[in-house]
């Protein structure tokens, strides 16, 4: 275990020392996942809202589908998109395979179900009077939607964190679609997988700790921005 603390210290000193390669990997991780979640949020929340407040045939089924998609393995997403993006695939001409764009696509597919299912759960718990009061006070549908979302912002925030946690730590899709190419598509999880496959456990765990430390900082920052921690009751 001493090699572990050693490797963690090493990793942290590399971090602190601004090691270009390590920071490059970290940058790719956060850039890809942040892009993915930013793209995924608006449609997901809209779907979540419609599922919670809309009344249309097939709504129940759709809710079931999205909660089923929570069990979608990352590898399967990776594989499927691989087949789509691969030269033979329908989008083969875009030549996106083994690029960060492909990774972003994979992570979007992975985080949409979480955002929808958790967002739906938060929105359906909102007091119906929130929507009604907004409308009756003259808010248009869009403003009323935003109002309801503001009312359940803690729940939506938790959904966001869960989705982000899922994709920042995800390895299956990134590996397949990015190819784990150094300086180009290697992110923290694929780097951990690589170190692990080499038997360099300490390096792997050290990278994991780096990821968690950065996630913790990001988390704290978000909590802070999100209104001085009124996250809790």
């Amino acid at each position, binding site marked *: 275990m001493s090699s572990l603390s050693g490797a963690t210290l090493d990793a942290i000193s590399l971090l602190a020392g601004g090691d270009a390669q390590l920071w490059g990997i970290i940058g790719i991780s956060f850039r890809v996942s942040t892009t993915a979640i930013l793209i995924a949020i608006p449609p997901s929340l809209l779907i979540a809202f419609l599922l919670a407040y809309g009344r249309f045939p097939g709504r129940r089924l759709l809710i079931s589908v999205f909660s089923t998609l929570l069990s979608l393995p990352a590898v399967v997403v990776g594989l499927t998109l691989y087949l789509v993006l691969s030269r033979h695939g329908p989008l083969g001409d875009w*030549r996106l395979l*083994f690029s960060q764009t492909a990774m972003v696509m994979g992570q979007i597919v992975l985080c949409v179900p979480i955002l929808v299912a958790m967002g739906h759960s938060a929105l359906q718990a909102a007091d119906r009077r929130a929507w009604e009061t907004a409308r009756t006070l003259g808010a248009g549908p869009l403003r009323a939607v935003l109002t309801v979302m503001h009312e359940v912002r803690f729940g939506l925030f938790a959904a966001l964190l869960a989705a982000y946690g899922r994709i920042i730590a995800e390895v299956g899709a990134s590996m397949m679609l990015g*190819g*784990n190419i150094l300086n180009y598509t290697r992110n923290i999880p694929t780097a951990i997988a*690589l170190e692990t*496959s*080499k*038997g360099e456990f300490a390096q792997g765990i050290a990278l994991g700790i780096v990821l968690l430390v950065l996630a913790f900082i990001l988390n704290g920052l978000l909590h802070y921005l999100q209104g001085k921690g009124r996250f809790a009751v």
Partner: protein
Amino acid sequence: AEAGNDHVLKLATTTSTENSGLLRHLLPVFERDTGYKVHVIAVGTGKALRMGRDGDVDVVLVHAPAAEQKFVDDGHGVKRVGVMYNDFVIVGPVDDPAAAGNSSSGNEALSRIAKKKAVFISRGDDSGTNKKELSLWREAGIRPQEPWYREAGQGMGKVLQMAGELSAYTLTDRGTWLAFMNKSPLRIVYQDDPVLFNPYGIIAVNPARYPDINYTGAQALIKWITSPAGQLLIGNYTVADSLLFTPSADTGHLASEYSAAGKTE
């Protein structure tokens, strides 16, 4: 070739070449010499060939001669070129309960393990190593069975770890073994039989199937890696003071091959 991306070359290879550090030893020199940028995608042999077949990479470097031959025969690749070889070794617990170390051949070593029903962990993942192991069992006339024979379905490194944890035997390539030797409670119990020979080949993906593939780059890499300079670099790459790979390219043969391919393009 696609405009603007000519200098990027996608190489699908097995984890053994990447994990052993060989590529990090070779490719920077190649990139400096030729100006190409190589994107290494390290996966299992099966997946690497699959990526080649789909035209998602430009060149593959793998070690599964039969599968490689089929790959070329099916028209997915231009030609298999031998690059280097290393060998497989049978590793097992230090006390060698099956006495596999006393064998005179690889087949006999496996027979002893089977007879003793000592735990043997198989890669079980259709990789080059796995194919080799299966062919060895076949040649020894044994159909290995559970529970002593366990299919792990993982990479070489993981299987070595598992074997260490379970005090089991397994077949491994020497490169991975050298990388893991220090962390493993196992030792080599049998080695140096010619049947354990492990040749690596490099194949350019067929430009006839994928006209916009970076065939020039692939040929440049093949030419370079089989050139005396490349071969020398392979030959002097060591891990833990041991040589890992033996260069084996027939450089003269390759030169004519390259010019022939160039003519057809």
